[in-house]
């Protein structure tokens, strides 16, 4: 329980923001950043702790979003139920995809490729299938209220996404401290050795993928409740696959707070670019791509790893940190 205190403190601090900040622009920025943090935490569970790098987490984001929207618009299902169904659908897709890929022994390059291809297949299907609104997209009716999960105030949306992010942080922390988490890290570090020790590697990866997919799907469900519009390019586009993996990598891959920190940095960079060069198409993605390369190059363990390195350097002196570096490499 003691370990949860920093998490609780961070969440309490963030929860107080709308009480002080009333600017819709700032709140909107934070809502989107938190949404990306949630999608990124999903990627982090599978990629960061489990070492399975997915290049197509849009598959889960988009499925969550579409299921939430379609159930409400086409079948009149309650918004809360739609939200939960969206998460469940994302998790189910994760289970199906995981069962197929892990059983065939796909790792590394192959896993990245097959996730990318699945997201792309779903994008093409969504762009032609009538139920998704095909090329036109799907528009949700504006109907404010708690029942419809639509609010006038940005603060309400902010607290909802913060609660989801809080749940994802606690989940990551519980995984980190559990036997399951240790297995997952063992699989990441050396899958064959983990198997030799009797760990059911495929089962562990599959469980991680289901949790991961569910979290990223939740971000998708939130997206459509917040923006009330969805098309195949948004739901299954590269932008979300890239940001889902970029945020944990910038913040610190395989750390609890990495995705949250990374999301705030990524979104700030995106906004700064817009201020400097105007809202040109592609500009934010150019920056994300460049940041991805630069971070891997100069800070492979992300900001959190970088901070830890610096603290070690300051407290123990350069010799000790040099030894630690050698041990790590």
């Amino acid at each position: 329980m003691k370990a949860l205190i920093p998490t609780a403190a961070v969440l309490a601090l963030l929860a107080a923001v709308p009480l002080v900040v009333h600017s819709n622009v700032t709140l909107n920025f934070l809502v989107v950043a938190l949404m990306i943090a949630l999608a990124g935490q999903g990627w982090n569970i599978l990629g960061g702790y489990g070492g399975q790098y997915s290049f197509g987490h849009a598959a889960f984001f988009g499925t969550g979003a579409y299921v939430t929207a379609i159930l409400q618009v086409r079948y009149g299902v309650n918004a809360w139920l739609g939200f939960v169904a969206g998460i469940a659908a994302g998790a189910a897709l994760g289970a199906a995809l995981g069962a197929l890929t892990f059983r065939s022994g796909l790792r590394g390059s192959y896993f990245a490729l097959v996730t990318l291809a699945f997201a792309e297949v779903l994008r093409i299907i969504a762009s032609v299938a009538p139920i998704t609104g095909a090329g036109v997209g799907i528009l949700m009716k504006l109907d404010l209220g708690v029942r419809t999960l639509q609010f006038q105030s940005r603060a309400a949306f902010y607290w909802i996404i913060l609660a989801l992010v809080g749940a994802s942080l606690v989940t990551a922390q519980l995984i980190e401290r559990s036997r399951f988490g240790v297995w997952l890290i063992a699989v990441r570090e050396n899958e064959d050795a983990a198997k030799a020790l009797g760990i059911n590697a495929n089962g562990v990866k599959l469980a991680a993928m289901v949790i991961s997919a569910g979290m990223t799907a939740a971000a998708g469900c939130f997206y459509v409740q917040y923006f009330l519009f969805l098309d195949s390019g948004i739901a299954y586009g590269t932008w979300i696959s890239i940001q889902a993996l970029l945020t944990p990598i910038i913040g610190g891959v395989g750390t609890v707070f990495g995705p949250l920190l990374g999301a705030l940095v990524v979104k700030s960079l995106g906004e700064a670019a817009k201020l400097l060069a105007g809202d040109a198409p592609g500009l934010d993605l150019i920056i994300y791509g460049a940041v991805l390369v630069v971070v891997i190059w100069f800070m492979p363990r992300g900001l959190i790893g970088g901070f830890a390195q610096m603290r070690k350097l300051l407290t123990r002196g350069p010799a000790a940190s040099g030894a630690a570096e050698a041990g790590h490499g």
Partner: protein
Amino acid sequence: MLSPAILVPAIINGLLIGAIYALVALGLTLIYGVLHIINFAHGALLSAALFAAFFAFRLLGLDPYVAVLLLAPLFFALGYGLQRFIIGPASHGDDRNMLLVTLGIAVIIENVLLYAFRADTRTIDVPYALQTIDIGATFLAVSRVVGFAAAFAVAFALWLIMTFTDIGRAIRAVAKEKLGAELAGVDVAHVYAVTFGLGTACVAIAACLLIPTYYVNPTVGDAFVLVAFTIVVLGGMGSVPGALIGALLVGVAESLSGLFLGESLGQIGIFLIFIVVLLVRPSGLFGARA
């Protein structure tokens, strides 16, 4: 049910377009065979090469079949530089990092193109775009026949380089046993970069063969590269003959499924082949490695 008069041209056209796919796939499989990573920047580099061919024609008035003499060395240098000075140092020898860096480069190239040229689709007009040859059973587009011949010429040239030159031997040595090659005095970083350069040059050649009858926009490469991924997986990652045969098979499959199912579903057909092959036989139809 279907008369040979429809089927035969569809198959022949499939083979011709398959040859262009083969060029894109050759680059990909070459890089995989040596570096053991999938180059996710391959599609973006193809888009960039198509733009280069487009502007060579529009601004310099160079026919694409002439421009290839300029663009192939240029893209070789680009690929060499990317691997030697960015991908190699940035990834610290870790495969997962290498994948991410190629993905990052893909995102940068694609969006720089989008930023500079917007999402507009462009085409060029060459006099031979609509010329055909009558072979009795059907008419063949001249540009496709040229592409077919050029693809095999390039594959043959690659085979010559790999078999008879020192750098070819070094590349094969690194592909088989990296540490051993390094101990024998092979400069692995240089070999990696040469391989990446060769793969990128293949893409530039493919672009010059495509541009007379195709269009260019910032994401045009994606469609090709997913087809190329399919071919490479089908033929076995790293296998050059596998890529050639796989490409012809996929070309015919696409042409036939387009005939039976229509264009957009034909594309899904390719993906389904891809996913099924990956799941059922990831070593490919001709690959021996698991």
